[in-house]
């Protein structure tokens, strides 16, 4: 009988309804992740850390993070968390350009922890505002380089400038390197600086309390206050904080002063390949330890830490290798 059929099987319309319902359920499960993949909620303040010596690895990471932030609609504002004495000129410039570009898209606030000097100051200068703590250190706008000296004539290079033996040319290049930095800072903050270019070029550093008076910083405030200010500026309402670490593991490479200049050491236990001289730097020198200081600490470590020295093998080995590397 036809009367039995409806009782044992669904009608075609019912079957379709069941399938559609099943598909809708599956879709409902998938939809949030699909939606999230294409559009996260727009209520994040990204905190980009710029810590340690300014170098290529740090610039790589900062550029990449800021590019990601600009492309990510969920990020409404950026806070730069700075703690750096500066470093390599080109790395400083790369971060400067990345911050400048990000600043065109959204609010960028720099929050200085203990120090943001020289190349660190360069990197954060395009930020909309600079937050400092009362005893943070900022400034040191200038170049650090040894006085060029006439070298003995090099025999062999294909041209007179290949081995660079003219002090006047070296002086001129150093002046250009310094002016590039100073001009950029004047372009970014000449309206804020309460002093003429000549005074800025003296490369002095200022404590936070003085910096907010002379225009090297804008506000006294902590990182959280900077984050809140950035969120408020972009009217984010409720927001989440997304911290993005940059650079290699802490402190590597570290900068060391020698009697002849500054070197970057790319390993805790450096060999010849790990020591790179930095002839010209945008760095605040007093924040860079002298190699003698490090060696002294290293020696004490070896002498007093008996267990540590047996673990390491030959006592004094580390010191010897460090000094050997730096000497190279």
């Amino acid at each position: 009988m036809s009367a039995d059929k409806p009782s044992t099987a669904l009608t075609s319309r019912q079957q379709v309804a069941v399938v559609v319902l099943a598909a809708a359920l599956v879709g409902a499960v998938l939809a949030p992740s699909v939606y999230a993949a294409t559009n996260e909620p727009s209520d994040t303040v990204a905190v980009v850390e710029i810590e340690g010596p300014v170098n290529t690895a740090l610039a790589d990471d900062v550029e990449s993070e800021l590019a990601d932030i600009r492309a990510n609609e969920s990020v409404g504002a950026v806070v730069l968390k700075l703690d750096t004495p500066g470093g390599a000129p080109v790395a400083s410039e790369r971060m400067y350009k990345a911050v400048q570009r990000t600043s065109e898209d959204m609010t960028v606030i720099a929050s200085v922890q203990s120090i943001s000097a020289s190349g660190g100051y360069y990197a954060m200068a395009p930020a909309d505002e600079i937050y400092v703590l009362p005893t943070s250190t900022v400034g040191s706008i200038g170049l650090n380089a040894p006085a060029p000296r006439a070298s003995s004539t090099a025999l062999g290079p294909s041209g007179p400038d290949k081995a660079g033996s003219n002090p006047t040319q070296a002086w001129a290049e150093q002046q250009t390197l310094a002016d590039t930095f100073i001009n950029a800072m004047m372009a970014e903050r000449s309206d804020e600086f309460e002093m003429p270019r000549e005074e800025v070029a003296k490369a002095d550093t200022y404590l936070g309390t003085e910096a907010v008076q002379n225009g090297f910083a804008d506000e006294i405030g902590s990182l959280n206050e900077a984050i809140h200010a950035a969120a408020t500026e972009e009217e984010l309402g409720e927001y989440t904080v997304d911290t993005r670490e940059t650079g290699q593991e802490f402190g590597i490479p570290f900068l060391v002063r020698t009697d002849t200049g500054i070197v970057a050491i790319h390993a805790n236990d450096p060999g010849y390949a790990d020591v790179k001289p930095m002839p010209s730097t945008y760095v605040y020198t007093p924040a860079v330890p002298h190699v003698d200081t490090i060696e002294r600490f290293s020696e004490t470590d070896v002498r007093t830490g008996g267990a540590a020295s047996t673990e390491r093998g030959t006592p004094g080995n580390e010191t010897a290798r460090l000094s050997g590397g730096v000497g190279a």
Partner: protein
Amino acid sequence: MTRVAPLAAAFVVTLAAVTGGAAVAGYVTADGAAPAPAIQNDHYQNPDLIANDTPGQATVEMDASAGSQTVLVDPGVEPATARPVLPFSLIGLGGGGVADRDIRPLANALIENGHEVGVYVPDPDQQRRPARPGAEETTQLGERLAEADAFVTFRTDYEPDELDAIESFVESGGHVVLATEPDAAYSQPGAASLDATLDVTTESGYVYNMEENDLNYQRVYAEATGDASLTEGVDRAVFPSATPVGTPAGGADVLRPIEGSELSTTRAPTDAPLLVRNDEVVMIGDSDFLSPDNARRADNDALIGNLADFLVTNDRTPPGDGGSTGPTQPGPGQPPTNGTAG
């Protein structure tokens, strides 16, 4: 069985519609991350940013027509085996073999005009010899000065008997050029004694100029304040690391730093002289300006020529004519010179 295909199709279409809708909604509501245009930073493209690196030309010429004079140069080289010496490195000398390298423009001018140039490097063995009882004490420097008409020194730490020899030398009409460096007074004992002997003064700190300088704030320009033979033809000289100097005698033969110069220790504007003349003595608060590289900057070549003229234009008549600086022993190969003012 034929209903399976439509059912499968319905499932796929529905799933696609839901997930696709979510995707489209996401893309529609997202702002595309189109590459931003490059930001033009005019401050990087200013042609004035690039410092002029032309080394320049130097023509050191002498006007003096004096007969052959002997000029003794003390480059500040310590006796052999001594520690590396500060004044030695300050004037950029690389080693014992190139002791006269950095004053070559001055030495060349003197030699080309027929004068003798001697370099004084103390012999450690002789210097420490005990004075014979009863004998008139003399010094190596005294012996060399006795033969000289003029003296150029970069050293400040002379012993008392050497200072006596220098004083006698000046009193007998010999001309002295003393080129010092910033803060030499701190690191070298005896600087004040030499200053007192020559009646000149130095200040602590160095002069810099943030507004106008020769490729570095410490490489300051100095200009003449009046007409004098020492500054003739010198519109501007460059002193790479200069300290203010002075003399109670005053006078017009001075170079002062240009406007905008400041002193490192006070951070206050300064126009204290960087070069002064006290009759037989010229005191310069810098020694690097004599180097071949710096001789090509500004009018340093004219200044060096004037200094050469000053050295050979003296009233001294050594030796044998009653030089008052102790025993004179003209050495072999160094004929006595009878230079007089020209």
